[in-house]
């Protein structure tokens, strides 16, 4: 819808079930460090995620907590992040939470 295009959903408001599916997928691919590097997360934040990983927490979920939390990033940004890192399946998982106009980028992404 038009409203969504102008005002994308914050990552923090993504429904929990979708978020769980997404994190399971990203953790299986072990791409959290690649994503953290791409968005230029600061070393202290990267270390924090590393520590949570050692405690058995999902690193992808911690990444979303920080990048979506403190930085208040939205689903549009996350969709672009997946596109730029060629994470096509991750884009498919969240496609219903971004503007339909952005779906063309899925077809143009190869995993």
């Amino acid at each position, binding site marked *: 819808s038009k409203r969504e295009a102008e005002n994308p959903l914050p990552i923090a408001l993504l429904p929990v079930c979708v978020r769980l599916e997404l994190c399971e997928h990203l953790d299986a691919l072990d791409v959290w460090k690649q994503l953290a590097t791409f968005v230029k997360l600061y070393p202290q934040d990267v270390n924090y995620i590393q520590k949570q990983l050692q405690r058995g927490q999902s690193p992808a979920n911690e990444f979303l907590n920080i990048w979506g939390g*403190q930085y208040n*990033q939205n689903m549009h940004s996350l969709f672009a992040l997946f596109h730029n890192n060629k994470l096509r399946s991750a884009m498919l998982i969240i496609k219903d939470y971004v503007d339909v106009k952005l779906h063309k980028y899925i077809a*143009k992404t190869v995993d």
Partner: protein
Amino acid sequence: NINNHSKYTRYTELRRVEDNDIYKLATILDRHDCWRKLMSKIPKQLDATECSAPGVLNFKEIATRVGYKYNEHQINLIASEHVDRGQSISQIMIDEWKTSGKQWERPTVGVLLQLLIHAEIYSAADYVANNFLSELNPERPADGPAAFVQFNTELSEEM
């Protein structure tokens, strides 16, 4: 003027902000120790009225000449405060800050917002801009973790 209906202005002192609004801000700052990031950026001296307008705080001067109000020891003291369930560590930090210093140093909403942007705590900065000031979200930097990601179209054209 879009600020006509805002609840506070940039010159409103934090101690005049309603408890419930501070509480909501505090819950945002509690996540990932964001309060610690904010507290470490608070400048030593501050003419609060003069520093409340947008973009007035000179962070280069603060870093090189003015210095910071709280050192690591004082921040750790707050961190070690015993908080009961449902209590917020950020609330304790804000309570300390908002009543500290001389009358003219009392922090304002405008000072808070500039510090939040400088510390890149956009969750809280967006909240203060929208809910305290009825302003749009503050502008994002072009680079770094707070920047919005743009689609790399070269990647698409490879197809």
